[in-house]
């Protein structure tokens, strides 16, 4: 049986000074927004704000300077993103590029891909989306059927992706498509960088239950992708996708999605909470504190060059369960006169998070898949 390793992580001194800079920046530069808008956070977006972050050097922070990055530590990037999330900054447009596309291109990309794309990511000028799910391929990702056919000088892609977040705003998609025989499942998958302006590519937004369109259908009708846009190894797509999971599953966005509502609850509760309110505040704080320790522990292991993929899986399931439960608990425990006193400020935040909470345990790997991975680590399967 494997033991999950979680050890206390101490932020380095450099990260502490940076935090003050980030807070000052947010106080001055964050667009005025309501608590409900703030609760969109990494599901919301603002291209001008993304460029501002790029100018400050807070995107692509861990990328090397020679590719437009900043050679900063994982800890420093962690400080920036957790402060952004808690402030409810509109960080959704560059989120995928900053979190995983940049590191993926750095690790597996060609020199040309690094030189052309990484500086744009770091500047907040290139947004990415992840082309993984398909109509017949959700949790069973290895069953993707979108196919790239080799042609002179490149590949022709045909098929369809779905549930692709921010595809309508992205400049590039990193698409996982089939280049080998269908029977081989995990082999025969390849990642391509697809220019979203390519001829034959159509993006169709899908409205979700909040009424907003965050995810999309993306259709590929004989889309040409030059050879230079294949990432890593032909047939190595599955391995490349799974190598990034520790980054994707352990970050503060996996437990902070409902932080705005917690802060709103704290605000309307005031300085003299009832015993019921004390109980809820205390329990949620204990959970949040523990999750932050766990998330930082995984970051520390990534920084040390270890492979904490299994620990990241634990963080994601516990974290998303917390952020998903929070709106229900706040709803059940809020004084009934708060709605009258607070108008729609509180209610709009609650409404948005009640509606979006179901997605927390779906995006980035469903709860059941995560628990299956943990069971495998335990030696149960």
């Amino acid at each position: 049986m494997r033991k999950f390793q979680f050890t206390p992580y101490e932020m380095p001194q450099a990260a502490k000074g940076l935090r003050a800079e980030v807070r000052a920046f947010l106080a001055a530069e964050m667009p005025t927004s309501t608590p409900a808008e703030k609760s969109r956070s990494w599901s919301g977006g603002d291209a001008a704000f993304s460029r501002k972050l790029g100018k400050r050097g807070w995107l692509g922070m861990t990328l090397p300077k020679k590719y437009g990055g900043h050679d900063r530590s994982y800890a420093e990037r962690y400080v920036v993103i957790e402060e952004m999330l808690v402030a409810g900054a509109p960080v959704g447009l560059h989120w995928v590029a900053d979190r995983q596309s940049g590191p993926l291109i750095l690790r597996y990309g060609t020199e040309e891909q690094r030189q052309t794309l990484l500086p744009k990511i770091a500047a907040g000028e290139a947004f990415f989306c992840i082309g993984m799910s398909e109509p017949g391929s959700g949790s069973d990702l290895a069953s993707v059927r979108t196919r790239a056919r080799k042609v002179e000088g490149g590949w022709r892609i045909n098929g369809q992706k779905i549930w692709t977040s921010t595809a309508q705003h992205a400049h590039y998609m990193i698409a996982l498509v089939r280049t080998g025989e269908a029977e081989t499942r995990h082999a025969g998958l390849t990642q391509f960088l697809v220019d979203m302006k390519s001829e034959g590519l159509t993006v169709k937004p899908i409205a979700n239950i909040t009424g907003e369109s965050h995810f999309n259908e993306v259709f590929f009708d004989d889309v040409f992708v030059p050879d230079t846009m294949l990432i890593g190894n032909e047939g190595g797509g599955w391995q490349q996708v799974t190598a990034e999971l520790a980054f994707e599953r352990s970050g503060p966005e996996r437990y902070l999605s409902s932080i705005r509502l917690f802060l709103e609850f704290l605000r309307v509760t005031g300085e003299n909470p009832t015993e019921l309110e004390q109980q809820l505040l205390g329990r949620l704080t204990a959970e949040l504190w523990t999750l932050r320790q766990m998330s930082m522990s995984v970051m520390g292991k990534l920084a040390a060059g270890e492979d904490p993929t299994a620990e990241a899986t634990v963080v994601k399931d516990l974290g998303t369960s917390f952020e998903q439960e929070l709106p229900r608990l706040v709803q059940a425990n809020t004084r009934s006169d708060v709605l009258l006193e607070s108008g729609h400020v509180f209610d709009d935040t609650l409404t948005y998070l009640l509606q979006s909470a179901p997605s927390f345990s779906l995006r980035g790997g469903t709860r059941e898949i995560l628990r299956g991975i943990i069971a495998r680590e335990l030696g149960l399967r």
Partner: protein
Amino acid sequence: MNELRTLLSATTARVLAEASGKPANAVWHAIAEAGLNKVLVSEDAGGFGGTWEDALAVIQPCGTHATNAPLPEAILATHLAQAANLTLPDSMITIAAHAEGTLTQNSFSGTLRFVPWGRDASHVLTALGETLILLAIADAKIEQHQNPASEPRDTLTFTNAPAQSANLATDLLADLALLRTAQIAGALEQALALSVQYTRERKQFGRALAQFQAIQQQLAILAEETAAANMAAAAAFAAKDKGDAAFEIAAAKLRANRAARASTGIAHQVHGAMGFTAEYQLHPLTTRLWAYQTEAGNERHWAEKLGKQIAQRGAKNFWPDLVARAER
């Protein structure tokens, strides 16, 4: 892990495994021989000169091995007595979170309740208001009680008993909560290990229980809760090394209690009737997990304390406060 901690972990695992199932005095003898009770005592005074994080390497296994002696209490008591310049005999010492009674001219009359291994220990350290007092249990009338794990939790009554005293420089209940948090994490680890082992061996419908998704998903939750309790304990011990750890201990005990609450049911459910027998070794763990949720403050106690504090600081300070504590 540093060298001392590696050494402590190995020694503790060996000593506690060998002592398993033995009477308290025999367990204590093995502990004292290895000097595990002196992990926080300075090297000059014959201890290991360890930090709280080092002490965790000794305290957590007490939960794993369901240790039949007040080793966590003794580690804390020895540390506090040394810091307060109290004279401590080299024998089994325990702790009571607080005393009721009066202290006049080094003479104590009053009652201590829920004293771990009161019947076996030679001395007890306790808090009377703002005073730390050390008493010889030979001077007490002992009424035997036990917690749900059958660990001694005795009532000691003293009448004009000689007492050493000093100013109380700590929150004893919080210190005890810190110990229990680590023990919960240790007991959960072992309950998880047993559950994994049992479900891999036990076959029904022609396959191991571990192969059923329903079982896998439940054990994944058990593993996650165990990880959370481990993290909470480790972070609280790390905070204790930095000084004031009131916030972290409250949060950690709350989280560990929650983990224990969510987990014992799963461990029993996957074990079926076997886990409910006196013979099988799940109950020494689960009964301790129940006991330790009450001891040193239940969820209500710590949630109230934490909740009050947070509300007083307000929404604007919540996040900066949380971060600042970790970046002292």
